[in-house]
């Protein structure tokens, strides 16, 4: 393989991977930024998305239905969880959230196992994107191009949502000063419910999109949550742009690191995280030091 097609292929690989990491990280970072909650169950919502996506696609025969239904259901469950349980805990310290979301991880994981069983399930790539394109004679799956594109679209969408909509404004304001927003007569609880639901929905969206690459399986959650943490930590907790930056950075380090130093594939991500934290304890774009 010549250098040019090699570089192009690897960069596109990295971008498609960055998109998946971004979906995973951005929800977690939004939730943290607004609610100061480390949502342990984030990976489980990602997994839930993949399984619901699988079933919806099977029932309706369309991947796209799964892509819509998965995040909606996961988001609704997340919102219900926030309303039912988390809302009673805001006066308590952070450890309460850690425990309650840890509990949710176990419960949700087991429910998924009871519903879908232990075997991995395959979600087919949608027909439109099942083909390949040739980059200087090297085949490249169009689905990966779609992933990278979806990453850009979602990133722009979230950015516009935060900048342009009233809810987005409230979310940004709440992350600055929840009491002030409350004093202005806004129902802060509603903002929190919305953001928790949106965060979980984004994780599920990532899950549905990742399923054709990795299959829907019970191992997804554990892997995903640590990736999500790494993205959020490197990017800076609560920073939307940070998570985008971190996702791209981690994806490139992984793709090129794995190529040149395969023995360090596992350690690379953690070394990067350590390096970033030592230089900037709050993460790349984080506010806290």
């Amino acid at each position, binding site marked *: 393989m010549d250098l040019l097609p090699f570089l192009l292929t690897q960069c596109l690989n990295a971008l498609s991977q960055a998109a998946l990491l971004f979906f995973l990280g951005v929800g977690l970072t939004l939730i943290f930024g607004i609610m100061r909650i*480390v949502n*342990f169950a984030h990976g489980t919502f990602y997994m839930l998305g993949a399984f619901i996506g699988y079933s919806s696609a099977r029932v309706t025969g369309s991947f796209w239905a799964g892509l819509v239904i998965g995040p909606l259901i996961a988001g609704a469950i997340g919102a219900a969880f926030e309303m039912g*349980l988390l809302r*009673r*805990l805001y006066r*308590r310290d*952070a*450890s*309460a959230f*850690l*425990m*309650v979301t*840890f*509990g*949710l*991880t*176990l*419960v*949700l*994981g*087991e*429910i998924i*196992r*009871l519903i879908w069983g232990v075997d991995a399930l395959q979600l087919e790539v949608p027909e439109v994107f099942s083909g390949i394109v040739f980059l200087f004679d090297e085949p490249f799956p169009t689905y990966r191009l779609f992933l990278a594109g979806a990453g850009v679209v979602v990133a722009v969408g979230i950015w516009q949502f935060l900048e342009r909509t009233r809810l987005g404004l409230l979310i940004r304001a709440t992350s600055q000063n929840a009491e002030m927003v409350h004093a202005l007569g806004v129902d802060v609880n509603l903002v929190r419910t919305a953001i928790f639901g949106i965060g979980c929905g984004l994780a599920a969206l990532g899950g549905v999109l990742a399923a054709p690459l990795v299959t829907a399986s019970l191992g997804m959650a*554990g892997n995903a949550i*640590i990736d999500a*943490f790494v993205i959020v*930590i490197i990017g800076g*907790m609560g920073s939307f742009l940070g998570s985008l930056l971190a996702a791209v950075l981690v994806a490139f380090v992984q793709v090129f690191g794995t190529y040149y130093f395969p*023995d360090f594939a*596992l*350690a690379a991500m*953690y*070394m990067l*995280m*350590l390096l970033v*934290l*030592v230089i900037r*304890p*709050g*993460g790349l774009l*984080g506010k*806290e*030091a």
Partner: protein
Amino acid sequence: MRAVVCAAIVLAIAPFGLPLFAMTLLTEALILGLLAMSLDLMVGYTRLISFGHAAAYGLGAYTSGYLLLHTSLPLPFAVLAASALAGAVAIGVAWVCTLATGISFSMLTLAFAQLLYAVAFKWTSVTGASDGLAGIPRRAGPFGITMFQTKDGYYYLVLFCLLGAYAFCRSLVRSPFGAVLRGIRENEAKTLSLGYNTRLYKIAVVAVSFALGGLAGALYSPFAGFANTDLLFWLFSGQVLIMVIVGGQGTLHGPILGAAFFMLLEHVLSLYTESWALFFGLIFIGFVMFAPEGIWGLLTRRVRA
């Protein structure tokens, strides 16, 4: 204090009343209790929330396992050496991690523990990589002491270490040093401005915490005969943290109870149902909602009422 003495006596006579398998569980519960208590020094007394305490346990477990497999060191010395190594490594780790505070500190500890996990996965000659170290013996000695090779003997070794560590921690948190830790917990900036080199105190408490956590790990590997990368995994760090919180942080004995509760509950549930995780999770959520002060808080509230 009287309750502690009573508990110690009950634990000391436990081997005479409990069946074999219960002793196995109890031994492991005490080892985890020691680990959770060591973390309480950081979390409960200094508000240094570590997401990487598995590193201490894993370091201790691997070191004592390695020493017992590859050297002729007697068991108690191997365990002590492992504990000392964990404490020494912690000084370096803490030196870096204390550059940050709050959630960033937590994240740095997580990063370190995961890096150690990755190293354990690659350093085959020492850690056995994915296989871990198996067949770790409980070597006799020194002076021909064979007591620790028996099940009950080993239990007493664990109990001795736990009680010793408890007495040590109790004295530590009530000492002038402990008063400074409490100051750091409540208001670190003020403590610094009073003229305390808070970073040094934090490094010291992390080192002590790791040495005791390492002691727990060092006791675990000869007990199970086994050590692997799961002991270093972030999930385990999270579980230990939860044991501390469930038990009641900042009490020392609370986390010991929390660890025993966590382990025994998981074990008992998994005996009765394959869906143990479901009930385990529900019980946790129930705990947070209805018993925010932890098991110890729940117990003392009952007593007071």
